[in-house]
């Protein structure tokens, strides 16, 4: 190449470097303002049903890309109105593109309940996940946990744990949560039956010990409830409390007088007419 040619090329390279440096500076200074901020740009994000058509078979990849973007977007605390389209992004777009993709259900529900403070929205997303993935126990388990921990809605939580427990291959902890929620929902007899089932099916000492503690305390609760009801019935019939618990059997109000889990008689005070447990509750209830 001639000297003239080299000089000409050098000028072009210099011009290119100068223009590139200017464009970088310009983008840094004005780029963000031009793009807009907040949730407004998401207004035009179409539903997943339309994106599925437009993705031409790359719907799983598009779901990945949108999920990655959503993680970065919802981690940015500078965007004040970022939760405006939260349900649309996860429920109508990402999980519509790939309904078998579990993480958007779990992480989306976590953002909805913990960050956006909208647990009902999180439950709607998890309900969709449960409907689309009936073979995955983790989704009803998460929904049950949300109802238990955030909403304190134990009957609803119990129903979700029951759904999770019905999935084959579910870890034993789900049954334990289910039994505990049944108790918290107020059905101690059903809970006792479930804990007894867990105790019988336990294959390791750890689970067996936990189950035994619950069976122990629930057994005491159920027995005291039965005795209290029988004493009340006795009082209605004879106008006074029985002198001893054995009279409840004599009167035909109980087929057998229950003994506590340690095999001792329950303590009974004829003056107050109240039965009680002579031992200590293991779980401190």
């Amino acid at each position: 190449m001639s000297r003239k040619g080299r000089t000409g090329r050098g000028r072009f390279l210099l011009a290119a470097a100068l223009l590139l440096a200017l464009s970088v500076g310009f983008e840094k200074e004005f780029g963000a303002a031009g793009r807009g901020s907040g949730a407004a740009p998401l207004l035009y994000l179409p539903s997943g049903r339309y994106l599925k058509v437009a993705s031409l078979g790359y719907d799983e990849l598009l779901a990945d890309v949108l999920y990655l973007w959503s993680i970065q977007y919802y981690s940015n605390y500078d965007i004040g109105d970022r939760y405006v389209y939260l349900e649309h992004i996860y429920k109508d777009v990402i999980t519509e593109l790939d309904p078998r993709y579990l993480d958007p259900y779990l992480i989306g529900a976590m953002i909805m309940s913990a960050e956006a403070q909208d647990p009902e929205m999180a439950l709607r997303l998890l309900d969709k996940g449960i409907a689309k993935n009936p073979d995955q126990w983790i989704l009803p388990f998460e929904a049950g946990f949300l109802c238990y921990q955030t909403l304190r809605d134990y009957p609803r939580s119990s129903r979700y744990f029951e759904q999770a427990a019905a999935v084959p291959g579910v870890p034993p902890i789900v049954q334990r949560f289910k039994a505990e929620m049944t108790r918290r929902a107020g059905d101690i007899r059903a809970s006792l039956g479930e804990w007894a089932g867990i105790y019988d099916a336990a294959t390791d000492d750890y689970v067996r010990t936990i189950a035994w503690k619950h069976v122990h305390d629930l057994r005491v609760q159920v027995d005291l409830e039965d005795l209290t009801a029988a004493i009340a019935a006795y009082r209605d019939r004879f106008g006074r409390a029985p002198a001893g618990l054995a009279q409840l059997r004599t009167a035909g109000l109980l087929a057998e007088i229950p003994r506590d889990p340690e095999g001792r008689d329950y303590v009974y005070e004829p003056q107050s007419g109240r039965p009680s447990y002579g031992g200590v509750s293991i779980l401190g209830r």
Partner: protein
Amino acid sequence: MTGRILAIALNTFREAIRNRILYLLLVFAVALILCAQTLSLLTVGSEEKIIKDFGLATIDLFGVLTAVLMGIGLVSREIERRTVYVLLAKPIHRAEFVLGKYAGLVLTLLVNTAIMALCFVLLLLAKGIFDPGILLAIALLFLQFLLITAIAVLFSCLSNPIVSCILTLALYAVGHLLWSFDLLRARLAAPWARALCAGLQRLLPDLAPFDVKGQVVHGIPLPPGTVAYAFVYLALYGGAVLALACAAFQRKEMQ
């Protein structure tokens, strides 16, 4: 006959591997497959899914691009450069020329796909997330490339490269949207329109049987007969398209 087709195929393969577009696509594909590793750092959970989705989609996309970009000029470029006259002056049937060109590109695609698959599998093995189902998904994608190549060759016999490229890509898009014809048919009132819609659905290439990326990544068992169906469909539909390409080239007037 087989010998002549093989000779043309090997010649086409040699020509293809000298093409810079092939290397450009291959380098991009390998770079993107390796990028999946970086992308997975941005996520919360699901790293395995993202790496597999990204790798399979890259192999799919770049395989199709290779098939289209190289297939569309396969015959028309020979005519344009007038090299076809040298070949056809020899005792070669025109159909042998088309089939030889097709076979050469298939060989190129086989090597191309094998290189992309090797990089992907090595990445999966390094991450400890390899699943043999991935190989099945790649094999079915390769069958899809064969069908796309046949379509590109047909258009290459009928038209110039730009028109061929547009038409092939349009059929590729439609091939992934045939399921939406059911939705369209349900909304059509006129019986003739519904019949036309159903006819088009049957007539257009169906690429869905070759796409099991989602099932493989999610570990969903494939319905029995999926692979056999894809093979038979490719043999029948691809064969029909190649026969049409041969017929079109047979009728083509060389000036």
